[in-house]
């Protein structure tokens, strides 16, 4: 009798556990919601120490693909029209340094979670993947953050617009990175807030 009772308790405890488990529904992000997320972001995001340098109205920029055997669409558009670009973009310029930032929102309904995908970097001080004889090839300071959001990707390009010069060393790189982090911190805060507001994701 007691063992039956214990079994019953165990079963009920298991059911309780199941009841509290949240069911996560996967849903496809509608294009209009994607566009609205970007428009809201572009309008509201006003980072300190940076100027917004894109016009108030939308500039929709698309491109034809080179001849290829991968993709029959022919251009980076959704639904056969340049009215539905795969990507929206906005530019920002540092007030204190030569850092230029381009933020791209890319429609990508198969991305399902929020995460950093990778950070891609080019710089005159990053040499381990370049043969010694070629390490003097001038390169800009360039960082690229690729983030995955629910239904779209965010690609941030950080470019130092100073001409590449000999004095650009580790110290220069340090200040470049500091500037990118000042931007990113504000960017992420605003992105998460707008992402949740517009898409109403808990």
């Amino acid at each position: 009798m007691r063992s039956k009772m214990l079994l019953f308790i165990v079963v009920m405890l298991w059911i309780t556990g199941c009841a509290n488990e949240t069911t996560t529904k996967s849903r496809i992000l509608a294009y209009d919601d994607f566009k609205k997320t970007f428009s809201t972001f572009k309008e509201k995001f006003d980072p300190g120490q940076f100027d917004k340098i894109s016009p108030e109205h939308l500039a929709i920029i698309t491109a034809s693909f080179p001849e290829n055997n991968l993709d029959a669409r022919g251009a980076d558009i959704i639904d056969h029209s340049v009215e539905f670009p795969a990507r929206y973009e906005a530019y920002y310029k540092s007030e204190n340094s030569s850092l230029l930032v381009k933020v791209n929102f890319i429609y990508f309904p198969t991305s399902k979670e929020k995460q950093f995908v990778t950070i891609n970097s080019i710089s005159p001080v990053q040499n381990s993947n370049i043969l010694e004889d070629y390490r003097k090839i001038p390169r800009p300071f360039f960082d690229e953050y690729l983030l995955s959001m629910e239904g779209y990707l965010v690609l941030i390009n950080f470019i130092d617009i100073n001409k590449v010069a000999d004095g650009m060393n580790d110290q220069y790189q340090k200040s470049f990175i500091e500037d990118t982090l000042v931007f990113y911190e504000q960017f992420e805060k605003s992105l998460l807030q707008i992402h949740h507001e517009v898409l109403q994701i808990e």
Partner: protein
Amino acid sequence: MRKKVGLCILTLLLVVPAMVSAAPYPKQPQTKVTVAPATETTQNGIPESELADMVRPTDVIVGPVFHSYDPDGYVTVKKFREIITFEHDNTRNSKPYNMSVTVTRSESQGSEWNGSLEFTGEIKAGILAELNSTVGVEHKTTRATNEAVGAKGDMEVDPGKTGFIRFWYKGRTTDGTVRVYYYNTADPSNRTYVDKAIDATVFVADHMDVFSEAWQE
């Protein structure tokens, strides 16, 4: 026996919350209450919240209040305010590419006014109303054709080129005289009129009157 009773109570304590949390939430009866009007109430075009600042313990001078607008003329400006730009890069393509776009009213952004003088919303509304009655027929025609289908633009971009389609709101530049008046609350019927020359470009924000250009580089 006492142990059994104790075990039963323990079971019940565990089971009841489980059942409660498993049950769907009952729908709360909803009472519809209108809390506030969706848009702010205005008096003579001035929002009520601004009127609150005009609480007058003693008599004050009120104005300027719109009386009339006498346009000397107006000119249509094709490129008053940019709505949207489409740019298609066809430089990597060996074939022509067709850009075909439609602009809807939801693209509209920005201010509807660009003028030499700052006025209250009420005075702007008065000037707009006068302009609308002057050029009313034309407004109605464009409204019917443009709003139904949206504004369209087409462009065939050659291989190796970049194509552009840009849309602007058309504006109307007007010059003329706006007459406003002031009065003292002690004697509202005794008005002081002032005429002001204006020079402004306007468009009606809820109305699709657009101009577009397409080119390639």
